[in-house]
């Protein structure tokens, strides 16, 4: 008898059941739509307008100009004035402000002699002249915020004294490829496609087998002539199309709303995506053969989902992680797809040049299908 017939019987039945489940059907479109809008606008690693305070011991016109110059960078906004240091530290502790600028009473003398102002060049050894103009007290617990304030350390102060610029020649010249405007959303949109697919694909199939068991259909299903591998493939097929729809929604909206173009070939993108979708679906199937209830399958999905978000390179650079974490990340399909989709969408890479990632996704799918089929027994004991 033809195995394709049985696969198509299972797939047809899955599609029918999916069509009946209006909520799930709606989520197929709503999850990528809402998440993309939410994260596309919300996630931004370029820090702007941090609320900060100031303790001004000089009370001079110069200190007020200094404050305005700093605000002009848009990195910070001065929201509070404190009269003394303890008050300011209290405000940092309660997260009212993220940092406090302490302007000393002798700020004008310090400013005049500061090399960045460029009034002559006094010898560097002179302790008197190398003193900074003022001090920042920063909430260092958040490294991104600390980094943003640290960036202010070498802020030019020329406008302050209305003097012509005395730009130092930089040590390095930096050319930013692929995302010259440094918009976070350019990196987020393709990454989000990987994260959303991981979530929805694993979730769909992780419940697939266990649901048959929970609803009491398993006893009937295993008395039919369907083979385990046919059941597995039949369960996966309908969701491949759903995954494809979700990718189209994410990348389409990414282009329309956030102006993130697909630079690479659509065919190569489709191939990489297809491989990732099947890999994620098989991962869900394996979960489904292990879980005893739908609740358990949901918990295991989350267990896989979190590292897929945090270790895959979506949030933090892969290279910054310790070796052990990199090994874990390598095992996850999301890590490989993250590289592939960012490569194709942002850099127009030929996927043949990223062969290891392609191979891993393919092997993961085949291996996963084998494991799920072997684990699935057509028996009740």
């Amino acid at each position, binding site marked *: 008898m033809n195995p394709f017939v049985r696969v198509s*019987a299972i797939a047809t039945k899955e599609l*029918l059941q999916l069509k*009946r*489940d209006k909520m799930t059907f709606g989520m197929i479109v709503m999850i990528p739509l809402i998440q993309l809008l939410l994260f596309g606008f919300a996630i931004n690693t370029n820090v702007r307008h941090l609320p900060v305070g100031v303790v001004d011991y000089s009370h001079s016109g110069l200190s007020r100009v200094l404050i305005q110059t700093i605000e002009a960078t848009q990195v910070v906004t001065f929201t509070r004035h404190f009269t003394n240091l303890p008050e300011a530290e209290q405000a940092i502790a309660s997260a009212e402000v993220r940092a406090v600028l302490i302007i000393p009473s002798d700020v004008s003398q310090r400013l005049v002699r500061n090399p960045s102002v460029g009034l002559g060049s006094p010898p560097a050894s002179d302790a008197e002249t190398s003193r900074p103009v003022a001090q920042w007290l920063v909430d260092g617990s958040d490294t991104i915020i600390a980094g943003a304030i640290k960036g202010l350390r070498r802020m030019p102060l020329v406008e302050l004294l209305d003097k012509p610029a005395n730009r130092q020649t930089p040590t390095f010249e930096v050319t930013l490829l692929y995302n010259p405007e440094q918009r976070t959303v350019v990196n987020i949109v393709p990454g989000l496609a990987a994260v959303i697919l991981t979530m929805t694909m694993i979730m769909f199939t992780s419940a697939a087998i266990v649901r048959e068991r929970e609803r*009491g*259909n398993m006893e*009937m299903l295993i*008395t039919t002539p369907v083979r385990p591998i046919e059941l597995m493939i039949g369960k996966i097929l309908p969701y491949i199309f759903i995954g494809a729809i979700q990718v189209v929604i994410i990348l389409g909206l990414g282009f329309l709303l956030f102006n993130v173009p697909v630079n690479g070939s659509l065919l190569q993108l489709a191939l990489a995506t297809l491989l990732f979708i099947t890999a994620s679906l098989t991962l869900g199937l394996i979960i489904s053969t292990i879980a005893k209830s739908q609740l358990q399958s949901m918990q295991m999905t989350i267990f896989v989902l979190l590292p897929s978000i945090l270790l895959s390179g979506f949030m933090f650079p892969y290279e910054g992680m310790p070796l052990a974490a990199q090994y874990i990340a390598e095992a996850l399909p999301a890590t490989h797809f993250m590289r592939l989709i960012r490569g194709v969408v942002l850099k127009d890479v030929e996927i043949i040049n990223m062969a290891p990632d392609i191979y891993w996704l393919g092997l993961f799918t085949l291996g996963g299908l084998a494991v799920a089929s072997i684990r699935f027994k057509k*028996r*009740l004991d």
Partner: protein
Amino acid sequence: MTGQSASYAIRAEKLSRRFGDTLAVQDLDLEVETGRIYGFLGPNGCGKTTTIRMLTGLLQPSNGRVEVLGCNLPEDAEKLRLQIGYMTQKFSLYDDLTIEENLKFIAHIYGLTARARKQRIEELLSIYGLQEKSKQFAGSMSGGQRQRLSLAAATLHKPKLLFLDEPTSAVDPENRREFWEQLFDLSDQGTSILVSTHYMDEAERCHKLAILENGIKRADGSPDELMQQMGSRVVEISSSELRSLKQTLIALPEIISAAQLGARLRVLVKDSVDDPIGFLSQQPSVKPEDQLNLVRPSLEDVFVTCTGVRADSGRQQS
């Protein structure tokens, strides 16, 4: 096994199944003839479902050998699947699919061609009176409709052997009678049927039956044989004080059981007593004006004699 096995749909020898420390089925010998309706009669938890699952290849026996339709289990379980139909005790089709969709799925998975599928489904809908309901979701149907749908699904691929696990437990008496008519139709067409039940009236309809208790076969044979070979005789006593009479009689070692039926007490007396009427009349608790009659045994009497318990004890219904 021997060539003689062709006339047997099922043959099992010393079939046992252990779950942890408990023996669900113990040394069960079974011979089900081709084309007959064979019944498993027994209370809940007596091993009916476990036995059926072993005979369908869904459970591996801990011991013993099984041959079903010439296939040795569990090795040939896959080959057997195309030839048997199994109607599970709990409804196991899809609640969120319609009657027609459920049948289409089964027809599809058994590999019927599109044309054969359509024809067979129409045929089944008409046999089981489901044409008008064909677009209705299985989850919203009554017990009787679900049961007919389950039978239609189990017989869709025209199996030679049909297993029915308590098929009528959620069905009213009228539907039950109709259901049995359909079983006799199938049997008439040559299908062998194994059905489990805890209803006496259903068991009486079987060609042959086995009485199971705690995983052990207590007796088997045709209902008539069982009633004739029963190791006791039945006396009905009409008396004014049945409750106290029952208590005193049941304490006697010669009495197997005493059950009240309205104004009468049905007493099972062991065969070792030559004259049951005389024996009972001599009892001081039996008054001279009480009427004693020897009556024809029923299957329930057989069951009580075999097991010492009523088949439906522990059941709220029936």
